[in-house]
């Protein structure tokens, strides 16, 4: 890592951590129903929404009712997204006259956006009408993120309430997350992005004359090019903030109309981790012990920072095969050096690697460089962060509730080691919580490993693999990791718009989202019904640096140990073979 990389990354991390506290406090105020500016100004609007929808805002829900509402709302969203794609050729705002989308691709995309994954088996500018982009995809960008935040808030209430059966009202949590947190941030972000040159228009694609005519594959001379435009800025803002990641254009944030300037790149990267980081502070604020929030954030950073260092290091080191050919890969005033394949020259090594590590850890999935072209270990770091269960930052809300599931496992083991029935924030952790936290820990393993095994065996899976050998294997493993982690980024090089991949990935996304939300709500319900054990000197302190470290270790061991053999046959062996030649 050279000084240039170091300074850029440091600035990023410092700004991120500085922003966590004010935003975290603001969100805590919103969820606690305290006056916090926006909710004072828009209170009557919020009430109007409840009145129109027939929501009794003050009525609390048991965890089961909460879960039913989450599911109903999400399935409804899924159906709407599916229908809009299937019918888009008959609907307005389709200036490019896009045909309706195929059933399996529509299913995949519907699940993908409802689950906050935003895996894209399609290319945006060549598939979706403006109406689909806005009404189906952008709407889901907001509400899928808000769903994750609502579930987290219900879980937090489980910790702070004493012998209570209800967890708050899902509709209220959903509306407040959207109205007071996601919308304002997204509006500010969109305007800034537009100022930087991100497109926002309903006009059809623009046709421009080529400066120099070219020949296409068939030998015909091409003199014109079509430049895709559309209402991009509004979607990109929330795609970054809501850990969605689905690009307006196929090239995602590597596209100059999605991410035109260094400032837009910095802000988009910042908004990748902004809410997940701030939610840690919200957690500490709401449980009335801010140190508990900092510990969670620290545990994330304990894993995040070495991964970031590793990614920058391996990318900057460049391609070992090129070294043997005597190609100069050192950074200098004339070149960024390192492995620049699949990276935008304007972003260079630091901003590409930083984005890749951030998007992988945040369950976002947007990209500004192609992960498939990273060095084997650089690509492995991104894949591995996803396989950890998307709890290092993770999706908005979902990352933190996932990490709390790991915390429950950590507290259990640590509690035994000091000779007490484990407790976290005064709540006793018993068999029921362990059962539910265990589901959260192992369900993603099922949906990563089994479909990957299937895909590398059956022809329907192998036919999509464009690269042979270890790298092809990595691509399939990455795809299922990304779907299960609700990340959505891809190691391209795999044709996934097929019946097999659309269906298998769709199911992985669906089950890894909702089969984790339901157990987490069950934990919240069970914790909420418990007493709070007062703190004594025999209580296991969960706010110490030691515990942050221990939590990180538990995440590594529970989340990653099982993937070691698979990684050994993919990126690790690829790296070793490269260094042997």
């Amino acid at each position, binding site marked *: 890592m050279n000084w240039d990389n170091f300074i850029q990354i440091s600035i990023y991390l410092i700004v991120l951590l500085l922003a966590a506290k004010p935003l975290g406090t603001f969100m805590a105020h919103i969820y606690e129903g305290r006056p916090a500016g926006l909710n004072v100004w828009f209170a009557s609007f919020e009430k109007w929404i409840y009145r129109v929808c027939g929501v009794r805002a003050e009525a609390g829900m048991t965890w089961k009712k909460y879960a039913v509402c989450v599911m109903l709302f999400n399935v409804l969203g899924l159906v709407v997204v599916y229908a809009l794609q299937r019918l888009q050729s008959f609907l307005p705002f389709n200036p490019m006259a896009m045909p309706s989308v195929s059933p399996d691709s529509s299913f995949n995309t519907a699940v993908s956006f409802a689950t906050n994954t935003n895996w894209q088996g399609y290319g945006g500018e060549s598939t979706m009408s403006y109406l689909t982009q806005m009404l189906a995809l952008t709407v889901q960008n907001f509400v899928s993120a808000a769903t994750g935040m609502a579930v987290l808030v219900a879980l937090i209430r489980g910790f702070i309430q004493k012998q209570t059966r209800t967890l708050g009202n899902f509709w209220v949590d959903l509306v407040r997350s959207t109205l007071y947190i996601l919308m304002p941030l997204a509006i500010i972000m969109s305007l800034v992005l537009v100022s930087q040159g991100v497109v926002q228009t309903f006009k059809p694609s623009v046709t421009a004359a080529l400066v120099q005519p070219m020949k296409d594959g068939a030998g015909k001379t091409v003199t014109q090019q079509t430049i895709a435009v559309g209402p991009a800025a509004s979607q990109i803002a929330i795609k970054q903030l809501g850990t969605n990641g689905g690009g307006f254009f196929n090239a995602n944030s590597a596209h100059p109309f999605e991410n035109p300037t260094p400032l837009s790149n910095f802000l988009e990267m910042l908004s990748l981790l902004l809410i997940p980081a701030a939610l840690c502070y919200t957690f500490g604020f709401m449980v009335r012990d801010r140190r508990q929030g900092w510990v969670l954030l620290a545990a994330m950073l304990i894993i995040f920072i070495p991964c970031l260092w590793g990614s920058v290091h391996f990318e900057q080191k460049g391609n070992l095969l090129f070294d043997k050919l005597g190609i100069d890969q050192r950074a200098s005033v004339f070149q960024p050096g390192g492995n620049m394949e699949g990276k935008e020259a304007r972003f260079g090594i630091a901003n590409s690697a930083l984005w890749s590590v951030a998007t992988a850890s945040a369950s976002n999935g947007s990209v500004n460089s192609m992960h498939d072209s990273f060095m084997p270990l650089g690509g492995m770091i991104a894949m591995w962060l996803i396989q950890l269960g998307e709890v290092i930052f993770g999706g908005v809300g979902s990352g933190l509730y996932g990490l709390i599931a790991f915390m429950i496992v950590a507290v259990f083991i640590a509690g035994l080691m000091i000779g007490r029935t484990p407790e976290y924030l005064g709540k006793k952790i018993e068999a029921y919580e362990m059962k539910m936290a265990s589901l959260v820990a*192992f369900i993603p393993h099922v949906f990563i490993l089994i479909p990957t095994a299937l895909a590398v065996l059956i022809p329907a899976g192998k036919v999509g693999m464009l690269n042979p050998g270890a790298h092809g294997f990595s691509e399939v493993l990455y795809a299922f990791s990304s779907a299960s982690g609700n990340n959505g980024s891809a190691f391209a090089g795999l044709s996934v718009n097929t019946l097999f991949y659309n269906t298998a990935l769709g199911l992985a996304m669906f089950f890894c989202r909702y089969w984790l939300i339901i157990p987490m709500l069950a934990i919240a319900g069970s914790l909420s019904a418990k007493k709070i054990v007062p703190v004594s000197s025999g209580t296991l302190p969960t706010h110490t640096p030691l515990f942050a470290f221990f939590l990180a270790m538990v995440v590594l061991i529970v989340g990653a140990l099982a993937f070691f*053999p698979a990684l050994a046959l993919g990126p690790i062996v690829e790296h070793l*073979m490269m260094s042997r030649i």
Partner: protein
Amino acid sequence: MNKSHKSKSLFEPSIIGPAIIDSLKKLDPRHQIKNPVMFVVLVVSVLTTGLYFQAIFGHGEAPASFILAIALWLWFTLVFANFSEAMAEGRGKAQAASLKKARKDTPAKKLLQPKRSSAYVTVSATTLRKGDVVFIEAGDFIPMDGEIIEGVASVDESAITGESAPVIRESGGDHSAVTGGTRVLSDWLVVRVSSNPGETFLDHMIAMVEGAKRQKTPNEIALSILLAVFTIIFLLATVTLLPFSIYSVISSGHGVPITVTVLAALLVCLIPTTIGGLLPAIGIAGMDRMIQANVIATSGRAVEAAGDVDVLLLDKTGTITLGNRQAVAFIPTKGVTIESLADAAQLSSLSDETPEGRSIVILAKEKYGIRERQVHELEAKFIPFTAQTRMSGVDLGDGRQIRKGAADAIEDYVKKSGGLFPEDLKSNIESIAKSGGTPLVVSEHKRVLGVIQLKDIVKGGIKERFAELRRMGIKTIMITGDNPLTAAAITAEAGMDDFLAKATPETKLKLIREMQSGGRLVAMTGDGTNDAPALAQADVAVAMNTGTQAAKEAGNLIDLDSNPTKLIEIVEIGKQLLITRGSLTTFSIANDVSKYFAIIPAAFVGTYPALKALNIMRLATPESAVLSAVIFNAIIIILLIPLALRGVPYRPMKASLLLRDNLLIYGVGGIVAPFIGIKLIDMMLVALRLVK
């Protein structure tokens, strides 16, 4: 139970022999299914054994000798785990055998009417039912647990407690319970039977030491879930490795897919067999340690809950202080010499046989040289203490009337006689009360002479034990019938956190309920019938074996030594039980890192020679690498049996420091140890030419 048992070493030959046989018997799938981790090992062992026969009789996937070696070591893994359990049980069984001797069928004299004068018929003890009344004479065995309704007797309870000195049992009061299997040495008793055959205290003890009715405790269940999840995760990781391997072979064009034998070896190495195998032994050994502390737990839950206790309620008398108050000073009022006060105090106490009275006589003699006089020489008439007068004293032949008693009682007494209560004494009385003492005012006729300071003597060493408890995070509360001033002073002197003064059964119960609703786990000790409601409410209730039947039934632990400070030991045993489980779980999972580095390169080096770089232990051959990992995995179980049976030592210290230390030893140690162990085994295999 025999006290000599305590000295029994961990690996007694008399236990090891049967344990080896038992560990083979326990291979029964019906037994293994109870433990999911070990059941997986059983399935995999059968599978590899099948592969071995396939290799002998047909086309094997690997050399038959290699498959055999793996299969054998997988079986050893199972047997070693069974052995640990059998060892733990074996220690209990030896004790159960000696207890069973006490449960022999004795003849019982069943009374037709519940009184001594009634006629009786001799029946077998096994026919007695709850509510029957029996007569027991000197030399008879007590046929069944019961409550004495008539009589006093000395009873030899050594069969239960291991204590050879006989104890007195009598009707009424706190010593009215008798236990079946003990023997009356003198006098007679009429006893109402309080339990049916098969439900007696002795039966409970036997069942418990045998571990027969042992149920999983809540923490054990939660841990089993965690271990099952690890097993599923690693099962997924190994099962999917076969397709991954097939794909890799096809696409690279080298090597052969990973064999099922190696996958089986990898699976068993990765799943937490160390803790999975030792888990039952740890639980049984925890109960065993309780028994060695002479505590009988009626549920395993109580043992575990003991480790969680955060409030300890202790009776003052007999636990915190010596049973009796003692005189420590005479403080005369103005115009009275200390000698004349001591003299009067001694005279008033000559016939007072209470320990307090004796201590006054002794103090007068030791400090002021006033020799003991004979009561009859003085023609004295002793006035005993009554609840009405609240004083005692003596009327001497020469007309002197000396009284001693509570300050307000004496004040009334002298004022009635037309005397005055001196003001200067009042401040002395108050300061004595404040310091935790009891003031006893002495008067002669209408003149007040002074005050005797009686003091509770806090037991030696108890303060240190409370300090230890505080380091464990446990709050101690003293229960006393004293007034708050006295209670506060003793609480401070003993270094306790709080007190409940003027305690009654109701206030005790209320205190416990309040603590519990605040989320605290409460432990208490008790022996009297009036303790029973509070014992029943407490989470961990230690009843004294000398206590009443009601108290023993309300408690979930019974202390055979009837030592109230035993709670501290019980807490330590409970904590040790949890710590042992937690530490071995950490160790077991941490071991996986090294096993990957042994097996993964070995399994795939044929397909991808580059993976040789991961063989950081430089193990000789792929076969020896896999075999060494499996052997280490099996042997570590045997090596950890002593730790599982003895328990990880517990030192009272802050939770954060304890966690740090145990993480260093079992976490970091768990990562490093197998690297060394596997390498050593590999070197040994090569040296013995057991692998090519």
